[in-house]
């Protein structure tokens, strides 16, 4: 059964299609990486699935048309980890994670025992025990990222959409964060859809990859099939070597001078 089904989804921003007739199927419990160069439409596609931008075509979540879902229903099916989440510095980790319970509460209701339990569980799953009373402003980048994921987990949604979940982390924290997401996926049967720039990291963790360019799906499949030297060159304009590593692949940039148009002078050397 599919967790998410998109058929010919188009999103126009300023009249221009940023996501163009995308068909996509994400299986239950699958980890799908959305890859593609800057401006390929990854973030916009995630926003469409989250119901944050109007779209044409159809999106079906858990067998139900997303358009017919109310905001709270949508948020109970699907949590979002934005690329640059807003983390008010005065807010404590406990308060922040509790906000993940919003879709389970009416606008006038207060959090109950069950909500605090769910939040406490998310806090300890993300190894944030003892951080409950710490203010977000005092956390490091990696800790903050864990708080954000904990909030998404407290939402108790089956699907988590992540926009560049590791872009602000160093390699150690990147690895930690992705391992953690992977183990959460296994334990709780989460479905993960992550827009990712780091192709090697994406190849290590994702079951499947979808390469977007110009708003369209170019190719999808297992990482080793999608990440070929030719495809990376065409769509990223980068010369790379794709190296097999432990059953997966790594993408290594190859040193090569960028060909310049004839008659080109670097800006520094141009006469005023």
């Amino acid at each position, binding site marked *: 059964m599919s967790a998410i089904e998109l058929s010919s989804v188009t999103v126009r921003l300023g009249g221009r299609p940023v996501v163009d007739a995308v068909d996509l199927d994400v299986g239950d419990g699958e980890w799908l990486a959305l890859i593609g160069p800057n401006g390929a439409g990854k973030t916009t596609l995630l926003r469409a699935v989250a*119901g944050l931008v109007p779209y044409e075509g159809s999106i079906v979540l858990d067998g139900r048309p997303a358009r017919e879902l109310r905001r709270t229903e949508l948020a109970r099916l699907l*949590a979002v980890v934005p690329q640059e989440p807003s983390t008010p510095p*005065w807010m*404590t980790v*406990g308060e922040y994670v*509790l906000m993940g319970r*919003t879709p389970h509460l009416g606008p006038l209701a207060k959090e109950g025992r069950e909500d605090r339990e769910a939040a*406490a569980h998310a806090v300890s799953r993300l190894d944030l*025990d003892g951080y409950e009373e710490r203010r977000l402003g005092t956390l490091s980048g990696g800790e903050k990222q864990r708080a954000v994921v904990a909030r998404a987990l407290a939402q108790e949604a089956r699907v988590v959409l992540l926009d560049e979940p590791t872009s602000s982390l160093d390699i150690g924290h990147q690895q930690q964060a992705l391992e953690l997401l992977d183990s959460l996926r296994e334990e709780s049967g989460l479905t993960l859809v992550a827009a990712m720039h780091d192709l090697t990291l994406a190849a290590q963790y994702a079951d499947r990859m979808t390469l977007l360019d110009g708003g369209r799906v170019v190719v999808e499949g297992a990482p080793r099939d999608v990440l070929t030297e030719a495809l990376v060159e065409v769509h990223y304009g980068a010369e790379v070597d794709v190296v097999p590593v432990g059953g997966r692949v790594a993408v290594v940039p190859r040193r090569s001078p960028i060909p310049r148009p004839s008659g080109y002078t670097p800006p520094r050397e141009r006469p005023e």
Partner: protein
Amino acid sequence: MEATAAQEQQRAAVRARGLTPLWACAAVAFLLVAVVTGVLVGPVELGFMRVVESFAAKLHVPGAVSPLNETEEAILWEIRAPRVVLGAIVGGMLALAGATYQGVFRNPLADPYLLGVAAGAGLGATIAIAYLPEGLRGQRALPVAAFVGGVVAVSLTYAVGRSARRERDAATLVLAGVTVAAFFTAWQTFVQQRNTDTLQQVYSWILGNIPSTGWSDVRLVLPYAAVAAVVILALRRVVDVLNLGDDEAASLGLHVQRIRLALVIAATLGTAAVVAVSGLIGFVGIIVPHALRLLFGIGYRALLPLSLICGAGFLVLADVVARTAFAPAEIPLGVVTALVGAPFFALVLRSTRVGP
């Protein structure tokens, strides 16, 4: 057994800091001190115990007889008490509306007048003062005209913000508010310049004061302020979520536009009502929530109720200064709030580390 105890402890650690009993008591104590000061201070000495006895008699406490004579009774119950109560309502409402706007628009500089309510009320009041016959003007027509002006201005802001082709986000609305406020202020200035004979009156209304007009103004304002406060306080948990930004609030399942509209309507109606009787008292809506935020580093859940209580106390005290500093002349209340408020705010800003 041990595991459950640990779980229990952990669950207790995950909590939202709402209004704790300690803070609530401290805020109410501050308000009480302000109210007692407001009732006792004035040209006629009433005495604390005598006021208490008169209050007991009013409450029909068995055996209590008011020691005040008829004039003193009138001073206490027809002049000072209503003025203190009105000041509390105005101050509480302005601080609460200011905090609400700051949360809803994610803008620390937002004040209750952000969407044009002050400019609209100013125009309404100026028109009433300039064109209505003397008899109609004073008590009845002026507050109504100011209230209508304020509500019309904010409605116009919403209409302009809505017609923008971009998504109806908070920033668009704030820009629309600036536009509408500029337009109404220009119009108000025009009317005022055409009628220079009423300049003095318009000017003193704009600077703000709490009128000593008995209970009629309290009755006029209280229903609006009460409804506004109930709506805002009921939604206080959600204001923190809204403060994360439209996208995140929406992905947490919030109907952002609907809730923002409810909060803005409540804050605007409350502000328009209090401004209609008190004029444009500035600064309360910014300084009170910010001082609380800087002192305690708290979210809107606790900030909103605290703003209501402390704003009430703050304005009652400011009004005491306004009417006694140069007695029998009164200083405009807006001048006092800024003169007292600005240095205090600077002090808070200097002496604190927990930023908003």
